[in-house]
């Protein structure tokens, strides 16, 4: 709006310039610095900084620190990096921003605090996105995970027209209503970092500082693995073995859940997490089978339904454990 712009722009400009100058000196130099800044920011805001889950998952949401901890009444706040695998997105390291293995940064806070949007915007400032110069927008995007039986409402966050995060208020997980509601933030780290660092191809992105003793690019670290996994995912993974593994994981999950809660020594221990590990496994095996192109359109729904049934069983079990109940 041009009319009142002039006067206000003058007063603002001074402030903007100062802040912009400060931000310039503060601009992160590498992929890892962005991760470190997010870690520091959310640690300072009181989140437990966890480490990645030690299994193959498709997204940070699958980490039990999100999926299971979103259930039940206990308060929770955690932040972590999660390496994520999406076999169908492999492009042999050639596509500027598609990868079959990438990183998500995940924040989960229960109950969702009233100033979660402000906290989130603070994290963008922390990694050098100055909201006086950029256009940050919350655009409707409701989240649903058919394999987890989970959904929530929220937005994708746009920075100058690019999606930089997913922001969700969890309503249901594993078929259970979330009470209280968790707020979940997911940053696609490569894409976000490429934008902040001004890099056009992910493989060219500095992984550590460009002036480090041994500067490494993202490509130095991951180009070869992208090639190797793309070939394996698309052409080589043995589908009979994968199918068998899927069935095994499914059966083991069911067996763990249906085991007696009381062990041989008379202790009552519900094994929600070990069962959930099998559910995660089944989900990843399904993704691999999908990448191999052996799952037809009609079968797809059936497989997703089978994984969802496991997720639901695990959620049912978790809410009976100490961490999942009052």
């Amino acid at each position, binding site marked *: 709006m041009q009319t009142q712009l002039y006067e206000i722009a003058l007063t603002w400009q001074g402030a903007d310039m100062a802040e912009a100058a400060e931000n310039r000196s503060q601009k992160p130099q590498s992929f890892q610095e962005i991760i470190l800044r997010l870690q520091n920011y959310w640690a300072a805001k009181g989140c437990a900084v966890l480490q990645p889950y030690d299994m193959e998952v498709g997204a940070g949401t699958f980490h039990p620190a999100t999926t299971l901890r979103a259930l039940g009444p206990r308060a929770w706040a955690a932040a972590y990096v999660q390496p994520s695998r999406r076999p169908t997105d492999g492009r042999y390291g050639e596509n500027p921003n598609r990868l079959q293995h990438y990183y998500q940064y995940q924040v989960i806070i229960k109950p969702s605090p009233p100033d979660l949007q402000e906290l989130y915007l603070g994290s963008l400032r922390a990694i050098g996105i100055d909201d006086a110069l950029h256009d940050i927008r919350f655009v409707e995007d409701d989240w649903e995970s058919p394999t987890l039986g989970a959904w929530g409402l929220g937005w994708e966050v746009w920075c100058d*027209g690019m999606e930089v995060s997913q922001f969700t208020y969890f309503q249901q997980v594993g078929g259970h209503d979330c009470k209280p509601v968790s707020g979940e933030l997911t940053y696609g780290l490569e894409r976000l970092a490429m934008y902040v660092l001004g890099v056009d191809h992910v493989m060219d992105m500095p992984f550590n500082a460009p002036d480090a003793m041994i500067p490494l690019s993202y490509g130095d670290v991951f180009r070869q693995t992208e090639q190797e996994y793309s070939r394996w995912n698309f052409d080589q993974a043995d589908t009979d073995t994968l199918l068998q593994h899927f069935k095994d994981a499914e059966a083991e999950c069911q067996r763990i859940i249906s085991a007696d809660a009381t062990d041989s020594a008379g202790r009552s221990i519900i094994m929600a997490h070990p069962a959930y590990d099998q559910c995660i496994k089944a989900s990843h095996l399904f993704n691999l089978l999908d990448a191999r192109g052996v799952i037809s359109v009609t079968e797809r729904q059936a497989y997703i339904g089978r994984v969802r049934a496991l997720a639901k069983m695990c959620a049912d079990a978790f809410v009976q454990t100490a961490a999942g109940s009052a």
Partner: protein
Amino acid sequence: MADLLIELFSEEIPARMQAGASDALKKLVTDGLVDAGLTYAHATAFATPRRLALAVQGLSDHSPTLCEERRGPKVGAPEKAIEGFLRSTGLSMDDLSIQDDKKGQVYIAHVTTEGRAAPVIVAEVLERTIRNFPWPKSMRWGTGSLRWVRPLHSILCILSQEDGAQVVPLDVDGIVSGDTTRGHRFMVPDTFSVANFEDYAAKLKRAKVILDPAERAGHIWNEASQLAFAQGLELVEDKGLLAEVAGLVEWPVVLMGRIEEQFLDLPPEVLQTSMKEHQKFFSVRDPKAGQIVGFVTVANRDTADQGATILAGNQKVLAARLSDAKFFWDNDLRLVSDVKLEGMGAGLSDVTFHNKLGSQADRIERIAALAREIAPLLGADAEMAEQAARVAKADLRSGMVGEFPELQGVMGRYYALKGGYAPEVADACRDHYSPLGPSDDVPTAPVTVAVALADKLDTLTGFWAIDEKPTGSKDPFALRRAALGVIRLVLGNKVRGGITSMLMKPIVNHIVDLAMKSNEYFALSSQIPESQDPQIRQILLEAKMQATKVGIEAIEALRDEKTLQNKSEFAINDLTNFFHDRLKVYLRDQGVRHDVIDACLAMPNNDDLTLLVKRAEALSDLLKTDDGENLLQGFKRANNILTQAEEKDGVEYSFGPEPKLAETDAERALFAALDHAEAAITPAMASEDFATAMHAMAGLRAPIDAFFDAVQINAENQILRRNRLNLLHRIRATCLQVADLTKVNG
């Protein structure tokens, strides 16, 4: 009198819900206020991404005090009845008066309901509104159980008069009402208080929020048009996008950029779709080159660098998106030049259309055969129609349509032209999905019409064959839309020939197909005991289960040809009726009365929709004239008298009246008029010129009226009576040639 101002301030409301939400806020609050006895002069609602606001002017201060007189039980009625009356009125015995009544004395209560102050009512209505708000999707947050579209942060609710404003006290699950709001999220985030609506709107504008969505949209449109104009370009109009973008910003700042050279040879539809769907950009066209060359994006803030950073960022995102699109385009073109559209569509055999109706490839096979069959009816070359049908859906397997499903058809045309197909085939690729909606253009190119009709007829007959018909509000396969498409194609192209004969072959083919398929299942299942391999056994078991679910009925049908025939006949009749129902709905929307359609449906060849509509339109026009309306009365009178007499006498008076027996001039005139009318009607009907036939029929109005005035039908003389009844029969027969007037109301 006071003015009410409400603002519900929340986290970002989805753009597509804002208009509906502001309407709902206005309706729920004003209806609530009126129901509670308040009056108001005027109400306006607004929405921005973060707030819903309602301004109500001239709200009364109190609801009126109501005095009501209520009749109770009779004096001396049982104790319990009197106690009940006292309880319901909240009065005691002393408050009641006694009045005389026809049946004796009764107790009368005077109940006074005190008026309530506006703030009390407003608080009550607003709380109810918030708790029952009709969001398409709502959520909980934090530890609360309140539902809103996204977390609700504050409620502003004030009643203002000349001497100041008062907060209407309200507490909804811990959100306490006040007189404050906030400005733009980034530019002026501070809280400020407001005194009335004008103050609110003005302070918001200073705080970088334009409250009125229409003003934001207008601003965006004007600024964007000017930016384009300044560079000799023009903005591509898109009202839906404009409304959506206006719902994404509180402070619209319009920025224009150019599309990189390397993407300019992409089809304009691709550029437009990619920019709109992914980025919410408007397209900017170079009118001289007729090309899309730029874009307009709308930011939500002013910046010190006049938007340079924002524009550069958007440009970068766009380049990445268009690189994807270009990758698909180049790949698709290479594929078409290598293997033609037939090769591109090869994968359609892996795409299930419906589990009982086979793959998309099976369907295309059927459509091609049908298009060939009906081509002569439409003046299309059969060979070309078949070829067009075979390739029309190939683009569903292209990379571009995989990315942008809304470009189906459009891409098909480009690829067909690049693949060297005839322009008629290319057009059929693009247009055979039409018409989609009731206002969509109807294709007229014969090859396109053949494919479009065959496509829709295959869908309809297929679902009828498997008995998956629309019920009530459920129509998951959009069969009503398909039928309307057929109707509009037939009428729009004046296609002749009955719809039933068009349906016959595809329906029977479907039914036999299904029976054959289930027979295969049957054959498989009979092998089960022989198979040793557990995996094969499993597959066969599943097949058997499938067969039980899908096919047993059809297998029986195939064994018994008679059943198969009955099944086909039933489906054909049922589908023809469905078409008639859809046609009625369509014609009613065009202003043709229901009974008029029924009158025409009762005539022969009623499955020839073009003929049917021609007849209905002529009858409809006739009934709009006085002559037509009076003729109808005359016809009904003749028909009633005749029908009664025929029932009473147990004979049909169809012998033919004898002119010599005419006694009066009126009678003789009617004979002459009938001769005259029939001479005109018979050739007109033969050439399907309904307007002329109806006009001739309307000419009977005066002679019939005069006849009834002058002549008594049931004369003493039985010969005269019979002759006059035979004359009435002639009137009936003449009129019924044109339409079944007995079915017309009036």
